[in-house]
């Protein structure tokens, strides 16, 4: 449980980080909170020669809520997400999800940027970002671009991020006032990844579901945006039939691996249960 040898860099600005990343090449890895990368290094499943620690870059921290848009700096910790009353009021599902990540010690150091950029299908924020239709801001020596969370994930640990790019922020439209939301996660214990988890965000207009988006955690080699599941709800009164259709649509896109949490079939089943319960909870919260 001791990593191989590596050089440690701690740039004070984003530009410095980007140029370090450019000059050190593909043997360099950016580290945010380190809660995915460092365990992998300790198991020697990842053996970067250089670690570029982003924690001294103030520009990457903070939560900005204005003009209908929420922007969260990549180095904002889960604990800071949880503590922000403004964020809780504008988009409460962030706090609900962050509280289900690992334990307080991890959340004190783990960041939203690290959580979404690493491409670990077990992480909770990526599915939530898909449900929120977030954009990821990627910056490299050639400038900045944005990629939708729904297009970002290619396979486990493979994402749309290019060599030399750093994910600097996530950005999404503030959900409509009165929206319903829920993040439901089944896990074996505190600190565990999900057996299956589901994020649901919806709005109800005069008894009819006017918008719905659903995404799933840890039941495929990427987070899964369950478009058909959301669509199954839109226009319905969230009646039993519509919910059942959404659950089935969500289950249909899962492809989990068998692991200590159970065989694939069980994890797909749990994904369905989480979706159903999250819809019910979101519907209750919507007004």
């Amino acid at each position, binding site marked *: *449980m001791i990593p191989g040898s590596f050089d440690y860099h701690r740039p004070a600005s984003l530009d410095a980080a980007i140029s370090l990343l450019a000059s050190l090449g593909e043997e360099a890895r950016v580290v945010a909170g380190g809660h995915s990368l460092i365990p992998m290094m300790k198991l020697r499943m990842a053996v970067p020669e250089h670690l570029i620690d982003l924690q001294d870059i103030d520009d990457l921290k903070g939560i900005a809520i204005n003009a209908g848009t929420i922007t969260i700096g990549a180095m904002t910790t889960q604990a800071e997400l949880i503590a922000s009353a403004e964020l809780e009021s504008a988009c409460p599902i962030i706090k609900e999800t962050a509280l289900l990540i690992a334990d307080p010690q991890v959340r004190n150091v783990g960041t939203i940027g690290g959580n979404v950029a690493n491409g670990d299908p077990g992480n909770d924020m990526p599915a939530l970002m898909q449900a929120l239709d977030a954009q990821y801001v990627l910056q490299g020596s050639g400038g900045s671009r944005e990629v939708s969370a729904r297009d970002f994930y290619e396979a486990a640990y493979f994402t749309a991020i290019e060599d030399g790019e750093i994910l600097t922020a996530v950005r999404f439209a503030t959900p409509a006032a009165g929206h319903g939301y829920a993040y439901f996660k089944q896990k*074996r*214990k505190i*600190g565990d990844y999900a057996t299956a988890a589901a994020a649901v965000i919806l709005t109800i207009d005069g008894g009819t579901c006017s918008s719905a988006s659903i995404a799933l955690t840890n039941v495929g080699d990427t987070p899964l945006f369950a478009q058909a599941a959301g669509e199954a709800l839109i226009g319905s009164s969230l009646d039993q039939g519509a919910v059942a259709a959404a659950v089935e649509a969500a289950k249909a896109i899962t492809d989990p691996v068998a692991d200590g949490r159970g*065989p694939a079939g*069980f994890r797909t089943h749990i994904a369905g249960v989480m979706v159903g319960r999250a819809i019910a909870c979101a519907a209750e919260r919507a007004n």
Partner: protein
Amino acid sequence: MNDQTIPPAAERAAALQGLGSSRKRVEDARFTQGKGNYVDDIKLPGMLFGDFARSSHGHARIKSINKEAALAVPGVIAVLTAEDLKPLNLHYMPTLAGDVQAVLADEKVLFQNQEIAFVVAEDRYAAADGVELIEVEYEELPALVDPFKAMDDDAPLLREDIKDKMDGAHGPRKHYNHIFYWEEGDKEGTDKALAESDVVVEELITYPRCHPSPIETCGCVASMDKINGKLTIWGTFQAPHAVRTVASLITNIAEHNIRIVSPDIGGGFGNKVGVYPGYICAAVASIVTGVPVKWIEDKIENLTATAFARDYHMTGKIGATKDGKITALSCNVLADHGAFDACADPTQFPAGFFSICTGSYDIPVAHCGVDGVYTNKAPGGVAYRCSFRVTEAAYMIERMIDILARKMDMDPAELRMKNFIKKEQFPYTSALGWEYDSGDYHTAMEKAMETVGYKALRAEQVENRAAFARGETRALMGVGVAFFTEIVGAGPVKNCDILGLGMFDSCEIRIHPTGSAIARVGTISQGQGHATTFPQILASEIGLPAEDITVEEGDTDTAPYGLGTYGSRTTPVAGAAAAMAGRKIRAKAQMIAAYLLEVHDGDLEWDVDRFQVKGNPEKFKTMKELAFAAYSQAIPGIEPGLEAVSYYDPPNMTYPFGAYICVVDVDVDTGVVDVRRFYALDDCGTRINPMIIEGQVHGGLTEALAIAMGQEISYDAMGNVKGGSLMDYYLPTAVETPVWETDHTVTPSPHHPIGAKGVGESPNVGGVPAFSNAVNDAFAHLGLTHTQMPHDHWRVWQTAQRLGVTG
């Protein structure tokens, strides 16, 4: 000086903080401030660090080991393999079970993560880099994972080193993968009684392989002083003296030239009883290099390569009359011991005290038999927070009783009450030969049922089942009852030894002139609070305040010989030694008092903290005064000083018991089991420190929850260990842990000097069946007889699915 008003006896007794006082744990001041001194805190000048290259296969022949690249790493000093240990005859070491275990793999590997090479480097980082570069070429062999296939004709041969040695340490071996067969009881009589019974139930009850997983892993620092020829090993040892003797026997270093020190230990739970290759390799490396060598496992190594627990496949069969009186019990066990038999049991008991499996019941005839087999899994078989194989026995009988109750449509608590050994039957000799010292089971069970409102719970369950059938709830309520009897405090030297060393224990007390004292004992705390509780025993015996008594243990150069701490033996054995040593102190003090008070010693009586003249309590000498006199006065016929030693050979084991009741709500759609309530009544005889007992029960119940609900070390068909890290291995946090309700009755042991029985392991023994019975009970009305542990989400859901109640 005796003219002041004498405080009342009760007041003086309270000031001593003796038996029954919930005095705070004196050791916690350093632990809570991060000032504990654990093995990994030991840093010696010039110390090197060793780390293991381990097998990536479950079963394979080693074709070659190349250490060149590892030796080229800057800072790597040496790499040891079996070839290097062979000239010293240390490539195998004896196990506690009469087998041998490879220290470093000799020509083949028999389990994944088996030790292959020991890389010694200037620091742990270089050692880890060296380990990465050890190149091992394997020829893979078929792995034997299923113990039920171990004795097949075509089973792979695991132990080539002993393939022709068909006479094992515990009798003849039936097959090359067989280790022993051990039995107890009357087979013929049991079979006959079962055949004649009105009702018979039979079930395969599996207690899966799990691991004690103490927070601190195993490790040591070995230091050979070449000037004086003395080898010192600081290590995570639950039995330091036994380690010293074993080390002397296998290294041929004279025993006085070996010093074993157990510093603070971060939990043991049986995991630190055995001898591991790391200890041998660190010692050899220190002898070779002439400087100290440290070895510390990481968590994955601890979980996958050091001693596991359980892995008992128990086929229980129980018979009863039609009105519910048990007629007979039989149990046949297949015990998976892994690649080497490294069980930690008293020598004559290869299946530990499994024959306590008749439990708390008056069963006229019984038989049990245990076959031990080799598989391609890590060796071990330690008692994880229980006396030797007692939790397995308790789990089997407590599940079987529930299964019988279900079959007979009787309430499981009622069936237990009907078959309990009665208070007036103690001392009670069980059908399998144990003499239970004392008990009052009916009182304990009745108190438990009354406290939890058992009848109301069953009524609520009837309601819950009806509501479930109507589709109003998706949660099923389960009530688990368990009543356990343990057998702890090993043990009488006449039948209990480890590698020939009798399982007595010891205490040595020195009273200082000013009336404070130091006591040394042959045990070692791993968190049990010995520094707090031994002084309480002594305070009540010798009348000096507990806070004035220091306890020292764990250093073989200073502590009297003892067999260590495990199997709830500290209080029953060393606690008795402390009381007996205290009584010797008091006897001498009485002689001194008689001289000082100018009376015959028979005219004195003991009163809390002093000797007083019978009928004249104004005339007395306090223990403090007598201590000073022992060092200051020339007393005819009495040696100066005030010291005593006691080596205590217990006449019998002690038999703690308890009644546990657990209430769960099972979500049939997710398999999540919510423990709504857990009530634990323990009877451990005389209670030394109620607060420490409560803490022990809390900890043990939490481990029982972990075992019942999730802990499992399993292997795939290739012998790859699954769940070998804390990502998968279930260690509950405060969030998963329910609120524990504790209670007690007190039935003292008649043969123990202070009537104490031991408690540390009771909650594990009683807790596991209580949880499991509750989960099984939730589904019982749907026709479930038995579902195997662990009751994790998937298995519980699978059970619900099998019974047709999932959505």
